């Protein structure tokens, strides 16, 4: 119970700090809109024939362009939360010199990542609600009621992404150029999850990598249920894949984080940056 309270306190602290930077708050909502969603929507619409995106229909089984792009934004946002809020947030504390005092508190160190996950995910949900509202009002965004059936897949993917965040936190605490590393890997992870286009279009060697990520399955299940997209695999197999990758990634993440902590203690790098 104490750990839960600590995690909630960490999440609240992150949200309080974020709310102090109002331009950053607005920017975090609108940047994905004008840098990702709108350009992608207009680019996709430029292939439309007679008002229908026939090409997209042929590729994924639906011509719901807005739905395809906005749902890609959901998984992209989840990946970004894991990479920037959960993992890189820990590194930011290191740079600010507050990680060492935090580390000396009796709170378990794994809880630091969980707390950031709470704050990051709450902000992720709020920003997605705003983005969906804009999508519905401006872009004619429509989902099928079956979208609710995809919620379990998204929740499992969130657990998987916390595992990924542990792995990333372990890496960014040990390397110097963490910003570039997170920026690049965030982009690659999001792309390999099929946020921008179906993973079947990836060059052959990258397809197995895509199917090793829980977000790939969550993306596909979400699009199937919400906009009636054609599944890449049998949905049952996709749930098995989602559960299996999450079951593997989470313990690997905890192990990597513990190893990174050991290394930092041995090298005395906790207070360095």
């Amino acid at each position, binding site marked *: 119970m104490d750990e839960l309270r600590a995690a909630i306190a960490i999440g609240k602290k992150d949200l309080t700090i974020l709310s102090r930077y109002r331009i950053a708050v607005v920017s975090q909502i609108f940047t994905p809109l004008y840098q990702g969603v709108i350009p992608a929507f*207009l*680019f996709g*619409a430029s292939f439309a024939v007679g008002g229908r995106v026939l090409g*997209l229909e042929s*590729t994924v089984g639906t011509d719901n362009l807005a739905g395809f792009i906005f749902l890609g934004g959901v998984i992209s946002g989840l990946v970004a939360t894991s990479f920037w809020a959960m993992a890189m947030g820990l590194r930011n504390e290191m740079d600010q010199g507050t990680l060492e005092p935090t580390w000396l508190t009796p709170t378990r160190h794994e809880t630091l990542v969980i707390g950031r996950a709470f704050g990051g995910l709450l902000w992720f949900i709020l920003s997605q609600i705003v983005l969906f509202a804009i999508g519905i009002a401006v872009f004619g965004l429509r989902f099928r009621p079956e979208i609710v059936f995809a919620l379990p897949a998204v929740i499992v993917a969130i657990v998987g992404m916390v595992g990924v965040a542990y792995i990333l936190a372990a890496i960014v605490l040990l390397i110097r150029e963490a910003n570039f590393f997170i920026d690049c890997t965030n982009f690659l992870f999001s792309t390999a999850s099929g946020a921008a286009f179906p993973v079947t279009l990836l060059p052959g060697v990258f397809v197995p990598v895509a199917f090793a990520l829980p977000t790939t399955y969550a993306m596909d299940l979400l699009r199937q249920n919400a906009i009636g997209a054609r599944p890449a695999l049998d949905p049952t197999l996709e749930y098995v894949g989602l559960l299996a990758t999450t079951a593997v990634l989470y313990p690997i993440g905890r192990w990597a984080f513990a190893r990174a902590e050991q290394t930092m203690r041995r090298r005395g790098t906790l207070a360095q940056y």
Partner: protein
Amino acid sequence: MTRLQADLRAFAAAALKELRITRRYPAMYLGMIFWPVLLPAVWVLMAQAYSGGNDARAVAAFAARAGTSEIAGFVFVGFAMYMWLSTILWGPGTALRRDQMQGSLEATFLTPASRLVPLFAPPMAALPNILLTFGVMGIALWLLFGVVPAPDAAIRAVVITLLGLPAMYAIGTLFAAGVLRYGEIGPVVQIVRGTFVLACGITFPVAMLPAWAQFGAALLPPTYIVADIRAVLLRGFGLADVVGDVLITLGLTVVIAFLAVFLFRALETSARRTGMLSRF
């Protein structure tokens, strides 16, 4: 030594200093290979999804709006402009802001060197990086998608790029002036860059915009620069075919440059009065 010679020496020294600083952060060079290849490559794959694997009707619809059916070329030229625009918008402003943060801006402004030195020497030092980025994109376009522009078309594209340089630096200066008044202009630059990306036909054809937005796009030099580079590279246009656009670009450059000079002077005077040069 004449005033001009002294300013030129100061300009060269400031540019060299920037190059030296850039060399100290080698990880940045990885970014110059990673982003120019992967960002447009992802958009080409998005085009595959949207066109149903190059369905003839979808590609024809795109060609009618974009003026070319060479989708990979269209995307890569657009992203080359995106990279250039990012460097230009961040360049002069970031250089001033960094000097402000490090406490050296006030000292620099107390020297008798022209204001053109702190404003333009750092972004000029970024030119080799921009050229490297263009080179990487060209190679990626060739190796990944088999698109190789004809040598004479490439030369025409270089001419348009050179003619567009003053316009781009004028835009950069206009936003750099904001540092003298507001300090942190990062979020504003993000919004401005986003506006350019949306308005100038960088990632999608301008024809997709509503009429009022197309009118706005017609007032921005990057719209003409990117359209002309696409025209000469992908549609076989000659320089004579785009001379009207080039003249409009040069005309807009003069307007933006005058505006930038006026704004910069006004904000510098204000910064001297308020002490903003040494604050951050």
